[in-house]
């Protein structure tokens, strides 16, 4: 139809003014709330010069803490990817008594102050706990605390996508005799992947920065169970503000790099599929 061709040829009527204004406001908000404080942090860390920055950031305890932090956060993110998707699936597609209650509880790790989370986990899985296990002050305890704190991320990221997902294709595939797992792998999973990756990025970021729950249960032994956030805290308390800022900025840079990578991967996958 002539009108359609004409419509397709003319440039898309981008709501130019209001769009730019909205973007401007959003960027302004982001700058004031996030970027400005971060800029102040980065600026402070370079105060002593690049050499001092590097020296502070590469001290043995700092490096050990960094390795531990990134390693545990990665494991935590992976576990969340699997468990979170499974939980979201169960909450959306399954029916069982008490489902509503369970759904309402998912966000509690956020709402409970971290000190409560830490103390509760310690009471349960530390010495004197009812299960007879005592993994407190080990790396397992560290992972456990982080899994608790990051539980809601992947679950809540996947749920809305699952809710919006059109089940036509799955039903068609099932009626053609495809196995459930194949349906999942080929039809559902590609649609969920962007959401899973979103949740994973958040979980990773949070795991890297967690302090309150971890500081209680993990033991804080340098080189063994001390994560970067606790190390930074210790430096600050000892008056080494520049060292604290340096390690913070390094951690920030690495987190940014990982988040960029996850984002790029997601864009690649989406282009690949779409």
């Amino acid at each position, binding site marked *: 139809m002539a009108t359609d061709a004409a419509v397709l040829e003319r440039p898309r009527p981008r709501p130019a003014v209001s769009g730019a204004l909205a973007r401007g406001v959003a960027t302004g908000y982001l700058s004031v709330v996030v970027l400005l404080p971060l800029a*102040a942090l980065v600026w402070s860390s370079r105060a002593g010069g690049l050499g001092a920055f590097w020296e502070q950031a590469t001290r043995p305890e700092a490096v050990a803490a960094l390795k531990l932090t990134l390693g545990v956060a990665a494991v935590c993110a992976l576990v969340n990817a699997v468990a979170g998707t499974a939980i979201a699936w169960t909450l959306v597609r399954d029916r069982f008594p008490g489902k509503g209650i369970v759904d309402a509880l998912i966000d509690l*790790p956020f709402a409970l102050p971290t000190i409560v989370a830490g103390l*509760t986990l310690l009471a349960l899985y530390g010495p004197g706990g009812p299960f007879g296990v005592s993994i407190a002050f080990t790396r397992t305890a560290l992972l456990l605390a982080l899994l608790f704190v990051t539980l809601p991320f992947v679950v809540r990221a996947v749920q809305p996508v699952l809710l919006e997902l059109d089940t036509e294709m799955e039903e068609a595939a099932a009626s053609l005799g495809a196995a459930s797992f194949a349906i999942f792998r080929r039809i559902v999973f590609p649609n969920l992947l962007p959401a899973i990756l979103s949740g994973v990025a958040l979980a990773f970021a949070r795991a890297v*920065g967690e302090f309150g729950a971890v500081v209680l249960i993990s033991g804080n032994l340098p080189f063994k169970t001390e994560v970067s956030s606790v190390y930074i805290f210790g430096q600050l308390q000892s008056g080494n503000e520049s060292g604290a800022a340096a390690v913070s900025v390094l*951690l920030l840079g690495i987190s940014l790099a990982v988040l960029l990578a996850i984002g790029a991967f997601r864009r690649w996958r989406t282009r690949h599929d779409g």
Partner: protein
Amino acid sequence: MARYVLRFGALGYLALLLLVPVGLVFYRAFEHGFGQAWDAVSSHQAVHALELTLLIAAIAVPANTVFGIVLALALVRTRFPGRGLVNAVVDLPLALSPVVVGLALFLLYGRGGWLGGLAGHGIKILFAFPGMVLATMFVSLPFVVREVVPVLREVGTDQEQAAETLGASPLQVFRRITFPAIRWAVAYGVVLTTARAIGEFGAVSVVSGRIEGKTETLPLYVQARFEGFDTPGAYTASVVLAVIAIATVVGLRAFHPREETAA
């Protein structure tokens, strides 16, 4: 068969990691009876802490929601230079430990900081309400954005383009087509943002100055109770926070009862 395996696996994980610890919190709060629990949270200090927490959330959550939707639209529907970077920066607040958030805010608004002069003109940011709101906004920033972006991508632009060619204004397009498509994502984003805003301890603790009866939020009150060996009081106050978070989810579901897909 697979359904049962999945269900038990997921629920088992949840039980160990979430249900049991949360159950313990509730148990510890009420183990000495409802009366004592009530006394613990009806003190003047506790009530003020609750009010302050809710007030901060009432500002931070809507702000982050509006920002989240706008930014999500910008990230998905438009192309601008640095899109990938902005995308990653949005998640950064979570990666910072609260100690560092506090440090960054100190460096910006504290004495000798870039905006430290504001205090001299009577605009108190640190150790006052504005600082606490800023810190809360900072840590709860990403959620609405992150929830909305995947759904926006999933939904596609067909309907929006159709509406535009039929002459709808951008606002109408948003109100009638875009928003209904993302409302679940926004809802979940709001739920997460609220939970995080009321439960934030670390960053708020650093910037609040913890002036009793003035700048003490409920999570800070919880910690103060622990410090004073009033463990039941601490757990009871935690239960209040948990109840608010649960109420948010329940309230949202009441608004949109249709939450099952045609399975």
